[in-house]
């Protein structure tokens, strides 16, 4: 199945492309679209990060210094939405666009026009979302989880713009996911069997399935919100016979797989980078694939662990507790496999490797707090406190974001044809590593001490930890400007990169020149066991 060797592709293969803005508006080239996704994600990362810094400025010390609480709530909400839907997901889609065709020996994504469309509707969605902050009554202020009835009956007038933008983001994600699935199933080069695919392709394939299963559920949730707000339904309104808890069930049925959508591609990235810099094959390739699939499956049966305090019955509470704890098993397998890959390797520590190792360590810390949160009777003490904020930022920043940064350093030579400055990249790493921990580690303590999340002001007993977090956050935010500078510098010039700049790297992407030509694999390569994965 899959590999269509004689894929009809006789249009010209020269590197000629339209110029100016129309090149980007009309492009169906996976590399162009991948780059646009990545730049868009970076812009959103800085936007969402800026909001985080406003939040941390307000929380620097007790008392209200700068904002009305209503504006503070808009910041926490839009920060979350922008980071989840604007930064992490588009960054992964950008990496998928760039790398999946190169990794499976395909000339492009299977559905290039849809690819163009799925990217270009994203900026529209986010312009609409961010513009709502300037509307009368302000932007969404009910948390990125937008629980009813706070977001329905009590939502600001701009909530409808929020709903529309979530619909567009969802459509974009679904189209991107369909494209990945169709590409992986139909466009693999001859001999690239499923179990020979690089793990990044595997993790993205599984992510794509999660996306097409849960994004429609999110669309359903916001549609029900819309009809509750304007068309007289009472899905989530207790006074009309509806059920506010139903909202949470629907939301988290989307939301829990969503958190794996934001981490599985990072697993794939670490599984490419660690073997490359350990100069040793990935340990337990098959168990990595099965573990990823198990995590994806389990992600559908654990959603109510976000709702332990809503009063679900004891039986339900126990089921969701056990199922959630079970996720630690396949996740543990992956971590042990990465350690075993490093074991007896011959390691060097260039920036991609540093970020990948930090990813493994810090993601594991997020996993530890995850197991703690899974234990319902103790979760009552952690739930909705800064302990949770610490937990999910440990899996998202050093998880999703460090994974993406590692990927960017790893493949930047392939994209630009230049080597980045290793010295600056190492500086970027160490500053990020210090500040990410300074920002998020103290949040464990403020949470355990009893500080609820999403509050603009707090008792003096939480002051020390908040000050540390705020200092860390400003350092972390400024450090990412260094990342921007490194990337621009690498695009503009730098030592010429070889086709395979990392001596331990494996995979088809390193068989094409650097920078990768506009069109690659017009003639599919043939994959044998020799040049298969890792």
């Amino acid at each position, binding site marked *: 199945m899959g590999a269509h060797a004689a894929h009809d592709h006789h249009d010209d293969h020269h590197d000629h492309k339209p110029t100016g803005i129309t090149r980007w508006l009309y492009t169906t080239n996976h590399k162009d679209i991948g780059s646009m996704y990545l730049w868009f994600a970076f812009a959103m990362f800085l936007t969402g990060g800026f909001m985080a810094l406003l939040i941390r*400025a307000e929380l620097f010390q*007790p*008392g*209200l*210094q*700068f*904002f009305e609480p*209503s504006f503070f*709530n808009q910041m926490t909400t839009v920060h979350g939405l922008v980071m989840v839907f604007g930064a992490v997901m588009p960054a992964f889609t950008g990496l998928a666009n760039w790398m999946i065709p190169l990794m499976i020996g395909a000339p492009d994504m299977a559905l290039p026009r849809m690819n163009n469309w799925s990217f270009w509707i994203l900026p529209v969605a986010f312009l609409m979302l961010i513009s709502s*902050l*300037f509307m009368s009554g*302000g932007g969404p*202020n009910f*948390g990125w989880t937008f*629980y009813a*009835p*706070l977001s329905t*009956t009590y939502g*600001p007038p701009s909530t409808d713009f929020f709903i529309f933008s979530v619909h567009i983001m969802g459509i974009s994600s679904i189209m991107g996911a369909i494209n990945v699935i169709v590409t992986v199933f139909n466009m693999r080069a001859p001999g690239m069997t499923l179990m020979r695919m690089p793990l990044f392709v595997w993790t993205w394939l599984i992510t794509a399935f999660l996306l097409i299963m849960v994004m429609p559920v999110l669309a359903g949730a916001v549609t029900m919100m819309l009809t509750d707000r304007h068309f007289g339904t009472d899905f989530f309104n*207790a006074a009309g016979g509806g059920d*506010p*808890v139903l909202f949470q069930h629907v939301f988290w049925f989307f939301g829990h797989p969503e958190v794996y959508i934001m981490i599985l591609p990072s697993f794939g990235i670490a599984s490419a980078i660690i073997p490359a810099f350990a100069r*040793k*094959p990935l*340990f*337990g390739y098959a*168990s990595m694939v099965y573990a990823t699939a198990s995590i994806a499956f389990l992600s559908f049966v654990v959603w109510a662990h976000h709702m332990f*305090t*809503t009063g679900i019955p*004891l039986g339900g509470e*126990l089921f969701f*507790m056990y199922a959630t704890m079970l996720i630690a*098993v396949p996740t543990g397998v992956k971590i042990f*496999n990465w*350690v*075993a890959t*490093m074991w*007896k*390797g*011959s*390691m*060097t520590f260039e920036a991609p490797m540093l970020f990948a*190792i930090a990813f493994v360590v810090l993601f*594991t810390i997020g996993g*530890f707090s995850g*197991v703690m949160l899974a*234990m*319902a*009777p103790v979760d009552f*003490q952690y739930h909705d406190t800064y302990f949770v904020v610490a937990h999910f930022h440990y899996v998202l920043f050093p998880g999703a974001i460090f994974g993406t940064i590692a990927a960017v350093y790893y493949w930047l030579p392939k994209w630009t044809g230049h080597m980045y400055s290793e010295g600056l990249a190492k500086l970027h790493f160490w500053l990020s590593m210090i500040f990410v921990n300074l920002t998020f580690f103290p949040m464990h*303590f403020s949470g*355990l001490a*009893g500080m609820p999340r*999403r*509050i603009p*002001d*707090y008792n*003096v*007993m939480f002051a020390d930890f908040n000050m540390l977090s705020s200092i860390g956050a400003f350092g972390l935010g400024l450090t990412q400007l260094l990342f921007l500078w490194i990337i621009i510098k690498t695009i503009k010039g730098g030592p010429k990169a070889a086709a395979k700049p990392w001596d331990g790297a494996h995979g088809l992407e390193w068989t094409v020149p650097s920078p990768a030509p506009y069109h690659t694999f017009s003639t599919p390569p043939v994959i044998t066991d020799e040049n298969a994965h*890792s």
Partner: protein
Amino acid sequence: MSFLSKLKAGLGLLALSSLTAVFANESKLNLREGVTEISREAYHLHNWVVIVMLVIAVVVFGAMAYSMWAHSKKNNPVPAKFSHSTALEILWTAIPFIILIVFAVPSTKLLMKQYDTAESDLTIVVKGYQWKWKYSYPDQELEYFSALATPRDTFVNSSELASTPIAAIGHVLAGGVVGAGDKPTEKSATYLLEVDHELVIPVGKKVRFLVTAEDVIHAFWVPDFGIKKDAIPGFINEIWARVEKPGIYRGQCAELCGKDHGFMPIVVRAVEPAEFDAWVAQKQEEKRIAAEDAAKAAASSFTMEQLMADGEKNYLARCAACHQPTGQGLPPTFPALAGSKIATGPVAGHLNIVINGKAGTAMQAFGAQLTDVEIASIITYERNAWGNNTGELVQPADVAAFKNGK
């Protein structure tokens, strides 16, 4: 001692002391032990899991660190070639599984205990409102509201707070990014964790809380009791606590419930049963006297000065969180009262919205929350403050008449 061993000893000491600090009681680095059987068991379970996690962390991160040193290109120029080991993979699937079962057993037991609300000695209904709590003792026929007692002046550190993005950025930049607001205030140890009327419960008794909400979802959380439950409109959730030690215990609303979510504390005063009985008797007496006073006051008429003075006080306590002390509100969610159609139009419309509220908004029905005298003073104040110079006086009798006429 060589430098290296000194360093090791120092690091060891540091690790040990931070561990002790983490697990020391009363430390703000760890969960608190609390004052109920449930909170204590949750605390011990928590500590135990943290220790196991630390051990796993030492093993896994230790192996990684060792490998990074021993298997670097410098120290191990020729990499090994192995890529799997079925035995190892089975082992590290099985071991975590067993550890999890070891966690699951006590968790299940504790959870069952937490869910057992049977045979309680006292029932209290806890109802969340934007942004206060109502505590009802159905068997004692008592109920009252409990709201933040910290004055707004204490937590506003700035002469002007931003509510739009541009203003927000301006204020942060003007404040030196993380500098203080321009008028920092002294904050006490109970800052934001103090209320006007505490929830009072007897120690040693199994107190059952029925938790619900009026408007949006709130969450009732007292960390020292080890209980947290969402207060959901249309639902009644149950939790319980048997407090072992008299004292004042403070908590907060834990679910984002709108603008003043951060200003919705919970303060519980646990007292000896005899003292509790005395408190109930005293409260009932106060209730009786208040009813008499209200009846008397409702029958009497007040001067404009009296109503305006009382009205300002009551308005600031009850209304200013949304409509703002300036009467300008935070439109469109919280409308301005200065110059508003309702506050300057017919009195009946004004009475109606204050007494019956407005469904689907944060405007609650204050008819049952405030006395007729309080409502009269607030309405009079609103109709004459901030340039709303209607000159109209609303007497408690007008309020009573409106209520009865309905």
